């Protein structure tokens, strides 16, 4: 009962301030928009610099890249323009074909330059570009061979290859998952959405630590402790109120992206369990920070940097799958990495609640540890003041 009263009270103090309402409701909406527009067909843009007069092979390069799927391709006459757009982040990668691409192949191999932004999309895009290069290499090599054997020029050779190509059966590549089901339609959104949700649940939670400091500074906490309520009850009350807010936010984001943008969060009980447990970790971390620091200015600074640093290290900015092995193992000291693993299982692999029991258990241990520490720190900070 005492715990509930304290929780209700801290919630009342929260909603009485308009700025807090923003963090509780508007920021998640903004996130939904960002996440949602990602879900609604996010395609990285690649620029192909073909020169002022694209050679036939150069034009084919852009077409083949586009046909490969998953990227939007724009051709540029001018390298500087493409580079400029890359620097403005309006393109995620640029392929620079040399002048007269495909027409002058004297001497060694012609270098095609590939420039990319340092973000997580790099590998995928480069794979697509690699595949086009391999295909064009095959055609060019065949054309050269034919040209030298039949005593015709390279253009005639290319024309012959282009003609013959249609009738030549090709080696197919089929991608399936471990159950043998078609991999097509693999859900990129799932990965990004899970990561972003983890990042922001924690960050929003950390910002809440300011309120805990304030209630200590104003003496609210001390007065609560002067009542027959124990430290545990007071802490439980503060935690419960904040936890409720975090869970509501998390669920709100998941449901809204699903309803409005058709995002697929996998099994709902499992997704909600992950949201709930991770919210508990975030809230416990906020209570700990709130018990350790002395003023609200510090808590914003610490909350922001700890929140972002854990997010980066825990695989919220670049997915854990591309972390080097040792770093990935090290990353699991953050609760974020476990939450990301859980979302990967639920959202991407379609796992249920039984498939994420390990992750949920680890997160609960984190929450318990943080809370234990927070109780000690809160007691100490109240004795000091």
């Amino acid at each position: 009962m005492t715990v509930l009263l304290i929780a209700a009270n801290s919630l009342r103090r929260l909603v009485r301030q308009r700025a807090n309402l923003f963090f509780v409701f508007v920021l998640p909406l903004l996130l939904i928009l960002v996440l949602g527009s990602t879900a609604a067909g996010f395609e990285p843009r690649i620029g192909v610099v073909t020169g002022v007069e694209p050679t036939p092979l150069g034009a084919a390069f852009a077409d083949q890249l586009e046909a490969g799927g998953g990227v939007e391709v724009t051709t540029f006459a001018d390298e500087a323009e493409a580079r400029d757009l890359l620097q403005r982040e309006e393109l995620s990668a640029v392929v620079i074909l040399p002048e007269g691409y495909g027409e002058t192949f004297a001497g060694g191999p012609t270098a095609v330059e590939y420039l990319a932004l340092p973000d997580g999309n790099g590998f995928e895009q480069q794979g697509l570009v690699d595949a086009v290069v391999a295909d064009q290499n095959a055609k060019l090599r065949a054309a050269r061979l034919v040209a030298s054997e039949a005593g015709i020029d390279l253009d005639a050779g290319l024309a012959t290859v282009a003609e013959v190509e249609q009738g030549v059966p090709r080696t197919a590549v089929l991608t399936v998952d471990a159950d043998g089901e078609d991999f097509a339609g693999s859900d990129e959104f799932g990965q990004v959405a899970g990561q972003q949700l983890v990042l922001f649940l924690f960050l929003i939670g950390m910002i809440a630590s300011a309120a805990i400091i304030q209630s200590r500074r104003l003496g609210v906490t001390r007065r609560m402790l002067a009542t027959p309520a124990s430290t545990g009850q007071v802490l439980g009350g503060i935690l419960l109120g904040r936890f409720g807010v975090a869970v509501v936010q998390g669920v709100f984001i998941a449901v809204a992206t699903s309803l409005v943008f058709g995002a697929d969060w996998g099994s709902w009980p499992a997704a909600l369990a992950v949201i709930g447990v991770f919210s508990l970790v975030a809230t416990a971390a906020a209570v700990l920070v709130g018990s350790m620091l002395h003023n609200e200015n510090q808590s914003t600074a610490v909350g922001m940097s700890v929140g972002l640093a854990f997010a980066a290290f825990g695989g919220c900015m670049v997915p854990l799958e591309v972390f080097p092995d040792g770093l990935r193992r090290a990353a699991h000291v953050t609760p974020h990495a476990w939450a990301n693993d859980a979302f990967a299982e639920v959202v991407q692999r379609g796992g249920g609640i039984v498939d994420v029991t390990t992750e949920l258990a680890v997160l609960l241990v984190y929450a318990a540890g943080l809370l234990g520490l927070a109780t000690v720190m809160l007691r100490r900070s109240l004795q000091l003041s």
Partner: protein
Amino acid sequence: MPDDSLVIVNALLIGLKDLRQRVRDRSALIMGVVAPLGLVLILDATLGSVAETTRFEFAVLNEDRGELGAAFEGLMDELEADGVAVVTDVTDRSELDDLVADGSVNAGFVVPPSFTEATRSGNPGQLVVVGDRSAPISVSVAEAIAESFASEVDYVTLAVASAAATGAGDPTEIAALAQTVEPPIALDSVTEEGRGFDPTSYYAISLSVFFLFFTVQFGVLSLLEEEEAGTLARLRTAPMSPAAIIVGKLVSSFVLGVGSMAVMVVATTVLMGAVWGDALGVAVFVVLGVLTAVSLAAVVSSVARTAEQAGAYASMAAVVLGLLGGAFFPISSASDLIGAVSYISPHRWLLEGLRDVSYGVPLSSIGGPLLAIAVFIVVTGSVGLMAAAKGVAQR
């Protein structure tokens, strides 16, 4: 009316007092230097190293006894030797599926039985990639590897068929000759430093700007703190003009902002080798950036009633504009809508300007961001100043 020179002296005194206070409680140090510098270090260590040190984990099931199966294994050995992948050989499909299912490998390749024979007899087979759904990036890399290998395999078939169409040479001879033709195109991936795309400079610039908007809050918002503590009333009774108080607060914000940016520029350059570019260009954007952040904080604090509220509003503005402006991740590539909306964020323009300077673009060609930031400063600055003047006069 007090003497003009006194206004400046008094303003400086107030500014100095504020600075001393911020240095003593260490919040400015945490926000302006420790937090952004620590984050750049962490991001650089994790995200920056990813491109160079990631090894994809693949499994290979080669059921083909011919040369193509062997060639595929050779390709895998090459990838392993190049440090691109770690490859596990397996002997049956269920073992491969299990490895993918439990996440031990990101993707598996299956070269089917009689792949070579089928291909050589004109009925090319099918390469299978078995992918882990929770590792879409690795799977797409595996797909690209398989596609490239398929192109290589098809090339010989294509060469033989093309030669036959021109009536030249004997198929077996052509097939043998085909191996001797070198691939004429090589893909050269340029992501290394010196071209302006290094992650260190990227994060150093993003995070310095992001935290700048928090750091400068201290000075401006302390006006409200002084009011709550009752010290503003006492300042007002002192023989000095209200302008001195406002200017003093602005000065302390400005100094905090410039100071933290200067430390960030020097520290990331010296410690991590970040490239900020031409000193004059950096200085111009740093000063403009600080002015932008100070005027934003002034506007925000004018709508708040308490210091705590003002702090919350200012943080919220910094987070939202930072998010929209691309301080967390490249926003414009996310979607057209968000890309367009991002132009209302001063972060977007500051990052664009600073990145241009870092890429070596001369200041004279960065007119767009300069103009946009100038407009932002003039608008928010005048609103903020008027509000602050009104506030001090009333209180």
